[in-house]
């Protein structure tokens, strides 16, 4: 049997068109988006010029208008990540639209999905998600945001950090413990709609090293009252059922995006490498033969490293596409790709010299952007823990 390590010709063409459009229409706004800490005001108009149809959401099989490829929808999603982010990263924040509604689709009842998921998918709205807290990041057992039943309502108090899109979201899905003694086992997810009294935007967008156009919000929940029906998952008239741990486990589906995060890092590094290669070729006359040979070896070494990233990313995604358990492979892709992508961009800046870090180029922005990709959706360290536990489990039978 012949193996294939590339997308199908159709999907390659799709990715190429997306890349070319991204370079032409997304990249010119990259510097301003970084400076303004937000996408350009006319971003919807920009996206209307996109020559291929792209998905705003990664939930499998929800959008039937998307082009079909023999590779499968999830491979198309990865091609979208690679194509779209090749121009710059700011566009991804528009495309992702948050994950609050995805959480609704995972944990909600059919009625809740009709109410909060379907309209967002159809209308292209933005939703927020609040899980991390100042004292609880990778370890969610430290959650202290509290929800207390009060008659026909839940009263929620606490705070959330690193909430993507929460400031502009139609609603935020926030986790809170309902029984301090049971802790995380009693965690429940609540839909908190914009304008709900007690939902306070503490900081609209954090001051960050990179990905500045991605809205990262701090919210406060101060005696925030929501109806019983806003608790995701079961009969709104019933009390908490202590299935919070299971609810959080259900969120592990979100982790399946990990290979795409690595793909994002890889395509940004590829953009940096391509740009650096072009600039160095323009400067070639200034090199002695032996030095040019060194430069070529450096460029080839980086290209090979990014190919290795892609192999792991696509392997993990391919497994999921074929309904194979890919938890370990997804973690390995996520641990492997982003730190090497970061090194590629750093090395590109070094090869160009001091001007490689100038704001006249985008390399320095991409270097800042990439750092977080080895952190969010699970740090490299957490990914290794996941893989190591799997190794041990298998070794012990």
């Amino acid at each position, binding site marked *: 049997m012949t193996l294939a390590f590339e997308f199908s010709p159709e999907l390659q063409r799709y990715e190429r068109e997306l890349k070319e459009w991204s370079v032409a229409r997304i990249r010119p706004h990259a510097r301003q988006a970084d400076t303004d800490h937000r996408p350009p005001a006319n971003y919807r108009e920009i996206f209307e010029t996109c020559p291929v149809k792209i998905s705003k959401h990664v939930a499998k099989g929800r959008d039937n208008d998307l082009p079909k490829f023999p590779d499968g929808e999830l491979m198309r999603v990865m091609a979208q990540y690679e194509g779209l982010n090749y121009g710059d990263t700011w566009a991804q924040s528009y495309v992702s639209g948050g994950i609050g509604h995805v959480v609704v689709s995972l944990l909600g009842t059919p009625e809740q999905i009709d109410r909060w998921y379907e309209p967002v998918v159809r209308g292209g709205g933005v939703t927020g998600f609040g899980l*991390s807290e100042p*004292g609880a*990041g*990778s*370890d969610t*057992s*430290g959650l202290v945001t509290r929800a207390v039943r009060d008659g026909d309502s839940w009263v929620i108090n606490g705070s959330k*950090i*690193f909430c993507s899109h929460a400031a502009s979201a139609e609603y935020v899905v926030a986790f809170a413990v309902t029984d301090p003694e049971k802790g995380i086992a009693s965690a429940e997810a609540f839909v908190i709609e914009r304008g709900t009294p007690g939902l306070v935007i503490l900081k609209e967008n*954090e*001051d*960050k*090293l*990179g990905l500045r156009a991605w809205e990262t919000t701090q919210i406060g929940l101060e005696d925030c009252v929501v109806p019983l029906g806003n608790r995701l998952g079961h009969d709104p008239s019933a009390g908490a059922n202590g299935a919070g741990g299971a609810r959080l486990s259900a969120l592990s589906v979100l982790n399946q995006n990990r290979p795409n995060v690595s793909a994002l890092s890889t395509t940004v590094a590829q953009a940096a490498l391509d740009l650096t290669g072009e600039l160095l070729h323009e*400067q070639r006359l*200034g*090199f*002695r033969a032996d*030095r040019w040979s*060194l*430069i070529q*070896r*450096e460029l080839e*070494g*980086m290209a090979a*490293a990014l190919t290795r990233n892609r192999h792991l990313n696509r392997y993990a995604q391919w497994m999921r596409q074929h309904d194979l358990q890919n938890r370990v492979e997804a973690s390995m892709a996520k*641990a*492997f790709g982003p*730190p*090497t992508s*970061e*090194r*590629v961009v*750093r*090395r590109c*800046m*070094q*090869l*160009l*010299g*001091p*001007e*490689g*870090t*100038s*704001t*006249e180029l985008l390399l*320095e922005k991409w*270097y*800042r952007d990439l*750092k*977080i990709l*080895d*952190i*969010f959706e699970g*740090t*490299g*360290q957490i990914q*290794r*823990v996941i893989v190591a536990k799997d190794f041990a489990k298998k070794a012990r039978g």
Partner: protein
Amino acid sequence: MFVLSSSTEDQLIAETARRLALGPVDQAAREVDRTGVIAEGLWRRLRDFGFTAPVAEHLGGTPNAVTQLRAVENLAYGDPGIVGTAVLAGGSTLIIDAAGTGEQRNRWLAGVADGARPAPAPALYERHGLPPEEYGTTITAEGDGWRVRGTKYAVALLDGVTELLVVGVDPRGGLRAAVVGLDREGVDTKRVSGTSHIALSAARLSRVHLDVLVAADDLLGGVDADARSLAFAVARTRLLAPAVALGGANRAREYATKYATERIAFGRPIFDFQGISFTLVDDQMRLDAARLGLLSVANGLDQGREKALADVGRIVNETHAAATEATRNAIQVLGGHGFLTDHPTELWYRAAALLSTLDADPYFASFAPAV
């Protein structure tokens, strides 16, 4: 005999540097990064300290490369952006002092130590990590004068400066340096205002194109200059940026360690997890090795050893490799918090990246994947 003890004087200098670092330098770091301006008071204190723009000992400057490196590293512990700016801007004094004639020292350094006038801005670095002996900038006899032709990068703080100290090579491949008036015809400075690079915003780094004729007495050391003295002085200057990076990286490692010992996850401080602690230990091993390497080369330069000249490129690149990795790992240990400007880790990460591009010679460093 293996000796690494410091003299009492060196210890005092290092301690003074550390006090400055943890006081005014640290306190100003975020504001300087934001505004791109180092307040006059802080600038004066750095100048008065005498190690970022050093002149001869009898003028109150640093006696040797080892002492200077220790001072600069300790100072950069406060903020590599501020100290990197001072070092990049101050490098010409050392070179003029070491390789200039008596008349030239008077002409270009008088009043510099007390801040009465700025020294010529040093124009050393070029692209692609070229070492001095391969600089593309040439200084060639032409008629009664000398033509300086080439492009220099990362020239710091041109505002208020009237002259450049340009280092290049003569037709025989020997190092030459010349002082060039910025207002001379044939000097084209591409000045960039504001925050124009990933870090060191106060340095306002510029690119300078030169195609200018200078007089023979503008050649550092004159027509018969001692190229060896110049080479040693330039080599010593090249060690300063990695010393700055080292100071910032050590601070980052210590900051991340403190955070890791206080941050609780999964029921214990995250430092208890080997994925965190071993990373930090590895970083410190690399940083210590880099420091000893830097000091070894500096010591060799102080002793006038030719081998030290040849070792500069390698230790510069090894130090930057250690510093860039340590600063990125510091952010990693802080997780999402390290990515926010609430913590200084991102400042140190950016500064280490910029400093690593000044002298990145692919003969001494090559790309290596992270895993």
